[in-house]
């Protein structure tokens, strides 16, 4: 009677005979496995960035860290344009390559389309290998006019015709070149950090700008190739010595304020500890949700053990050994988990499109090839089956036949079993409550980010993101055309926009007359007409720029003039520079980026994400075109209608540049909110399902426990207990674990959420209401889960209950 076939038959019968238990058991496990699978896919996607590309493991990104007050301490994965060339001068055997994303417009007849283009060194495809569709990408970029394109671009511009050898006119940063397609590669994977659709060789004469040889500028990404991490970290010392020889003597960067180091390409995607922590957290959510489902299995299986005691006794009487019984019950557990895994896989498959849409992701389950889900799935079935099965199997196999057969009572696993079940329920609820508090906090923070005062009016503000590509002499015309649109109140151009900034200039600014070591790193932003009125910024001291004051306008400055130019600074700059109040800053002189005079102070404009601290800013006004501008339009009415009008206006006035425009909400979401929203959604999904699975377990346990106590309830009712007394007893018994779970969950959630919120500069306070609210919800959910069972038993006629065995 111990063959696997017989065991499986007995398993099948126990499923069909106890349908409710089978449903709860397998349903809970399947949901847990589905959550685990989805989060597993997410974590694998996030941690697998760049790793699948041959050669990526040997590449190291040169990153730079600045040590100046007020400047972010994080390392930037960018270098000066010519850094690799300079480095090769001292280290001729060094292998490296560069990646430089460019603004590109592809011409096809009279239509213009912007495409993702990167200028790279010709050896880029020798160091990173991508499947070739036509031509040889490794050799392709030897000629300055050669381009490597992806299959998608080839299809878009050349249809089914072979693309290699065809020509493609492309405008890069305002200059038009005709490139010849030298190779076509497969579309780049979504998890490659440096993907692009068109690649052209870096040609100094074509692309080098004023910053290309400027130490301290951060234009492009430089990769160096080393055989392993030891060699790479050894070379970091060389970078320091190179800086001593060439960078510091140049004078632009001071010793001690700047350091280069190497970042493995494969570590790049989650280099920020906050990102790593977020992804790890989602992995933990997946694992804990699965754990809750496993706990359900253990609880229900041991609680039900009594019902199967007789089967165990009879099998033992017939000569079944403990080992054989253990094997049978373990096999049952693995079979249950396998069944649940299949259902869970189906749930995951069905819900993936929705989850992808929810978070703008591209997660997919693959069954064949290197990323097949099957090996991890099978491993999970075995591991989870073993974890879920071992304890119930031991409990069941331990029953003594004589005692079981002689007794009219069903053993319930004893006091230890009951205590273990109670402890497991406490654990489940602790996890669920901690999830609940975290979800509440994340949702509240997300709502805050969407609604917080950013220092400007985020609604009804439209950004023309490709304004910088418009020829300087056409820019004023574009602005005038937009200003003339009905419903448009104001129009401006500036070097920054909410969610966008192409070029960030920072200098060490200090109060005139003080030592420059007292300075703060201050961002320099050039703005056009009506900047503050258009974005809706608030003046808090002094005045805004005014065309009536010629000294406000840097475009009117005489070349070589020593007169201070007028700046408006933000509240943070006023505080950072040590002014007693914003008003005290007005009329004061600054130094460090030329001499400046403060004419006004505005409230901080949070144009970047909620995680980034607001930096000190000095605004300069120019009435003439300046570099890297965005245009912004303050409109009224329906955003969709305005977009249509905006596109038409753009096409009429700036036909050479493809139209691209977004509302501020869209732009901020795309750039700063999306990742957090994605993760918060995934977290919420996992947390809600974890709570649901916990409730399934609680329901099963309550069903079992009330059934076991029917007779006791009969006795109590006989002694005069009313229905309410019995309800209190049954529900109260499950409230104790819930209360205990709160005691465990609160400190854990408090610490975790404080750390999580710590990653935001603009954040909510961690309110005790989230804790109390979630505890209350937990109590209500737990009560609702067990109420039906308790009500039925509490209402039953005592005489019937007393007959119950």
């Amino acid at each position, binding site marked *: 009677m111990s063959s696997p076939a017989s065991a499986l038959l007995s398993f099948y019968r126990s499923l069909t005979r106890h349908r409710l238990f089978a449903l709860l058991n397998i349903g809970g496990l399947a949901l847990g496995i589905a959550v685990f699978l989805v989060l597993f896919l997410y974590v694998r996607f996030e941690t697998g960035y760049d790793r699948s590309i041959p050669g990526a493991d040997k590449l190291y990104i040169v990153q730079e860290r600045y040590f100046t007050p007020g400047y972010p301490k994080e390392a930037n994965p960018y270098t000066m344009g010519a850094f690799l060339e300079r480095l090769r001068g001292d280290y001729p055997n060094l292998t490296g390559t560069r990646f430089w994303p460019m603004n590109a417009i592809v011409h096809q007849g009279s239509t213009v389309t912007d495409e993702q283009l990167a200028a790279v060194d010709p050896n880029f495809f020798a160091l990173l290998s991508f499947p070739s569709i036509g031509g040889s990408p490794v050799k392709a970029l030897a000629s300055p006019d050669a381009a490597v394109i992806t299959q998608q671009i080839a299809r878009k511009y050349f249809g089914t015709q072979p693309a290699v050898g065809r020509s493609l006119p492309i405008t890069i940063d305002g200059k038009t070149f005709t490139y010849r397609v030298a190779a076509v590669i497969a579309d780049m994977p979504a998890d490659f950090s440096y993907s692009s659709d068109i690649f052209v060789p870096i040609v100094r004469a074509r692309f080098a700008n004023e910053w290309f040889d400027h130490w301290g500028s951060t234009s492009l990404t430089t990769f160096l190739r080393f055989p392993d991490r030891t060699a790479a970290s050894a070379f970091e010392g060389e970078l320091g010595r190179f800086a001593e020889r060439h960078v510091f003597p140049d004078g632009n960067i001071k010793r001690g304020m700047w350091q280069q180091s190497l970042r493995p390409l494969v570590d790049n995607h989650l280099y920020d500890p906050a990102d790593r922590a977020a992804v790890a957290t989602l992995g933990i959510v997946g694992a804990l949700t699965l754990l809750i489902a496993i706990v359900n299995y253990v609880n229900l299986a041991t609680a039900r053990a009594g019902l199967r005691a007789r089967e165990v006794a009879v099998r033992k009487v017939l000569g079944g050994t403990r080992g054989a019984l253990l094997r049978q019950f373990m096999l049952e557990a693995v079979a249950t988990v396998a069944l649940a895994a299949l259902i869970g896989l189906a749930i995951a498959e069905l819900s993936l499109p929705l989850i992808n849409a929810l978070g703008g992701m591209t997660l997919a389950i693959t069954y064949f090839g290197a990323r097949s889900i099957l090996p991890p799935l099978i491993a999970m079935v075995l591991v989870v089956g073993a974890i879920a099965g071992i304890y119930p199997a031991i409990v069941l196999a331990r029953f003594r036949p004589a005692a079981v057969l002689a007794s009219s009572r069903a053993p319930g696993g004893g006091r230890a079993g009951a205590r273990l079940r109670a402890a497991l329920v406490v654990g489940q609820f602790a996890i669920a409550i901690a999830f609940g508090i975290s979800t509440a906090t994340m949702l509240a923070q997300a709502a805050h980010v969407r609604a917080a005062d950013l220092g400007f009016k985020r609604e009804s503000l439209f950004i023309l993101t490709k304004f910088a590509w418009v020829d300087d002499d056409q820019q004023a015309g574009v602005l005038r055309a937009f200003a003339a649109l009905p419903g448009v109140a104001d129009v401006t151009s500036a070097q920054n926009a909410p969610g966008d900034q192409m070029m960030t200039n920072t200098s060490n600014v200090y109060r005139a007359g003080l030592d420059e070591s007292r300075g703060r790193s201050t961002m320099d932003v050039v703005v056009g007409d009506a900047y503050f009125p258009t974005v809706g910024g608030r003046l808090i001291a002094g005045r805004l720029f005014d065309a009536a004051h010629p000294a406000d306008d840097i475009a009117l400055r005489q070349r070589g003039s020593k007169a201070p130019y007028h700046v408006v600074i933000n509240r943070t700059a006023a505080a950072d520079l040590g002014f007693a109040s914003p008003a005290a800053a007005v009329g004061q002189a600054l130094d460090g980026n030329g001499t400046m005079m403060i004419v006004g102070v505005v409230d901080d404009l949070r144009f970047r994400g909620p995680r980034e601290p607001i930096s000190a800013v000095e605004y300069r006004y120019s009435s003439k075109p300046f570099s890297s501008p965005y245009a912004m339009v303050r409109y009224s009415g329906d955003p969709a209608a305005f977009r249509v009008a905006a596109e038409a206006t753009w096409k009429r006035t700036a036909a050479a540049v493809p139209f691209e425009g977004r509302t501020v909400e869209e732009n901020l979401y795309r750039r700063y909110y999306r990742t957090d929203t994605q993760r918060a959604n995934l977290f919420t999904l996992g947390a809600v399902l974890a709570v649901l699975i916990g409730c399934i377990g609680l329901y099963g346990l309550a069903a079992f426990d009330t059934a076991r106590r029917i007779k006791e309830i009969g006795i109590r009712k006989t*002694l005069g207990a009313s229905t309410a007394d019995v309800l209190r007893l049954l529900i109260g018994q499950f409230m104790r674990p819930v209360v205990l779970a709160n005691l465990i969950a609160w400190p854990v959630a408090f610490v975790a959420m404080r750390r999580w919120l710590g990653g935001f500069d603009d954040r909510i306070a961690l309110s005790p209401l989230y804790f109390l609210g979630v505890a209350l919800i937990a109590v209500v959910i737990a009560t609702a889960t067990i109420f039906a069972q308790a009500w039925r038993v509490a209402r039953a006629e005592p005489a019937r209950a007393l007959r119950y065995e």
Partner: protein
Amino acid sequence: MIQLQDVSRTYASDEVETTALGGIDLHVERAEFVAIMGPSGCGKSTLLNILGTIDRPSGGKYLFEGDDVAHAPEAELARLRRDRLGFVFQSFNLIDELTIAENVALGLAYRSMPAREKKERVAAAMDRVGIAHRQRHHPHQLSGGQQQRAAIARAIVGAPRLILADEPTGNLDTANGAQVMEILRQLNAEGATIVMVTHSPAHADIAKRTVHMLDGRILASARLAA
């Protein structure tokens, strides 16, 4: 004290309807000690359950101290059981998870009175039946006789006016059975009304009146000379 008029009880299952009691008329006076005898399945326990309001009659009238309880709401019945009834079962029906003292205290659990008074009454009830020395034990650690005495202590701790005993000696040996009967006799002598189901003619003799049942009906009611 108790008046049953034409009380019947039928059980309906999916296929058949069985009559457990059919047209019972029974009158029990205050401070009476009534034994109910009859073969297995004659309806003795059903009758006792109806008397104890833990089962409802399908028809007829049940007056307890003048109140109609056959149709009283559940909450009122719970109060009645709590304040005026005491139960003793053949299988003791002690709760395994609780100690003897806690089981006895269960008889007062649903009444509001000062904790100190509860404690005193529990102690007195345990003394009365001679199990005070086992109060910290759990039921399965006691002999059958001791368990039944604990069950009696639980039944009397609330000073009920009516004690219902369903084969209280059925699971006990002769000596223990005699001990239990002696306790019941004393309680009756002190004024408690007792209705007891029994198979033992000897124990029925201790009661003042014996009611004989067969197939859900009362055959005869014989009053013993005191």
